[in-house]
């Protein structure tokens, strides 16, 4: 099947200027500006299939937002080719943005002075949504996201963060776009609200085959929504593949946590790392390529009075952090 998004060798260089602090530096910069080029994207290529939920992750300043902006048609890249739904986003901006929805978690997208419903009605006209479909869809979305009618009729500035976020998502999805970019959609939300948001995204993806591209720092978002992730750092893709592969292959480690009646003997076992130790418990990380889980568990059961034993995967945050750090080490050497 033809991919919905095709990105080839996307490069973006920002040109900005620099100056030191102090009055003399300020005056100097008036006369002569020292320019600085910042390579935000250094040749990024990937494809996205129709109906996918893709997670785009990376540390701050890695280039995630630049990708989102270039792909949503509001930014001219320095070079490279992007074909989405057969269009080049920044060249056919007006025509192109009709097909997409964008939510910036950190940005107010609804008119601050007006109730959200006014922005929704504007979208109805801008995206040419037939009246009956518009109201039906709006009712459905408000119900699913548990937004009361009154909330959509209150000026946006008087709403809570969670309410605004839900309204933003509604605004971005009302025209049933083929492709949706979510830039940190759960930022600042509580656990329940986050879950609601994720369920809703999943529902829309399943029902309308909407393609989602999500950037986030919340690994729960990724784990619950994405099958595939792209990790980006220093403007380059450092991983593109299934989430499960990251979990299973790249870092093949398990965490064993054991609780004891009493911790008499010293723990002696090579090939694993002790993460935490108290008189009644121990937490160890095992590299399953070097040591088998079975041997450790047998050792623990044979030598200690275990009351509890759990084996878990290390949290995804740690894995990602390792990849980031790994990348740094490779770069510095």
């Amino acid at each position, binding site marked *: 099947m033809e991919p919905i998004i095709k990105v080839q060798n996307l490069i973006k260089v920002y040109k900005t200027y620099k100056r030191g602090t102090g009055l003399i530096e300020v005056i100097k910069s008036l006369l002569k500006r020292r320019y600085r080029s910042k390579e935000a994207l250094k040749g990024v290529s990937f494809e996205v299939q129709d109906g996918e939920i893709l997670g785009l992750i990376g540390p701050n300043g890695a280039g995630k937002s630049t990708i989102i902006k270039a792909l949503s048609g509001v930014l001219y890249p320095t070079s490279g080719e992007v074909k989405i739904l057969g269009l080049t986003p920044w060249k056919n901006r*007006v025509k192109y943005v*009709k097909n997409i929805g964008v939510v910036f978690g950190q940005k107010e997208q609804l*008119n601050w002075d007006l109730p959200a419903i006014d922005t929704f*009605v504007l979208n109805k006209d801008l995206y040419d949504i037939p009246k009956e479909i518009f109201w039906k869809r709006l009712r459905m979305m408000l119900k699913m996201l548990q937004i009361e009618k009154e909330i959509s009729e209150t000026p946006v500035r008087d709403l809570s963060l969670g309410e605004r976020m839900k309204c933003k998502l509604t605004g971005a999805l009302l025209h049933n776009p083929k492709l949706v970019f979510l830039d940190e959609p759960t930022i600042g939300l509580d656990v329940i609200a986050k879950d609601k948001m994720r369920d809703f995204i999943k529902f829309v993806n399943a029902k309308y085959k909407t393609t989602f591209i999500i950037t986030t720092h919340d690994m729960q978002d990724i784990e619950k929504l994405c099958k595939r992730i792209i990790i980006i750092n220093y403007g380059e893709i450092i991983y593109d593949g299934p989430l499960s592969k990251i979990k299973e292959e790249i870092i093949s480690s398990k965490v064993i946590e054991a609780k004891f009646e009493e911790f008499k003997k010293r723990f002696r076992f090579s090939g694993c790392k002790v993460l935490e130790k108290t008189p009644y418990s121990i937490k160890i990380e095992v590299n399953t390529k070097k040591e088998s889980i079975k041997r450790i568990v047998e050792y623990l059961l044979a030598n200690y009075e275990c009351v509890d034993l759990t084996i878990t995967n290390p949290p995804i945050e740690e894995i990602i952090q390792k990849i980031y750090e790994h990348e740094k080490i490779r770069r510095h050497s």
Partner: protein
Amino acid sequence: MNMKKYAGIVKFGLKTGLAYRFEFILSIFTIPLSLLVYYFLWRSIFEYSGQTVIQGFTFEAMITYYTLSMIVGFFTWTNIEKWIEYDLIAGEMVINLLRPMDFLHANYFFELGMKIFSLITQAIPIYLIGLIFFSLKLTTFLNLCLFIISLILASLIFFMMSYLIGILAFWMKRISGISKAKRPLITFLGGGILPLSFFPETAQYILYFLPFQYVRYIPISIYLGKFSLTSALALIGVQLAWVVVLYLFAIWLWKRAFQKFMGEGV
């Protein structure tokens, strides 16, 4: 062209305008106030000079001129460049660009919506105040029609000039300085402070080739019946030409501005 789209954005502008309705209601009182200043200024000038006609203007004609100047100024004035500057500085531009609408048209129709409320609620009161208190004269039906056409074109020229200043913010970041210079420059060169017939002949000649007088002086003079039908039509033609030239320039400049845009704020 999709009219529904434009109607939608006009409505949206209207709603935004109504969110600040108090400010609009207040300006019903402030506009006649500045008219009063001109009224007393010219009354003392006429009394002091002892003449009844200055540069072809009687006192009554002078007050009519300023009343019309207020009306034309009120109709044509826009601060769209400040909105553009604000959106760039505050990092809101990305949100605008995500709307499936050409930037120029989106701005124009939003602004139109913002203004419609004040135009409807204030243009007629101001006209009435002019008629009753400031001896504004009624004009012939033909002149009124020509005046309205000229007024619409004037507002388009004004909009284009402001929009172009706004687009400069993509390079300069802050355009408050130019924006502040805009008011006295356009008002003065457009004939809002003094009728242009007070200017030296060479200045008047040069001003024919600049867009400024077409946003103020020309519509006023058409209302006052200073031109024959043919020259009035010719001047309307010049206005139209300015609209086209500035429009094409705006499209050209926008293309460059968009390529320059760094997507700040997100």
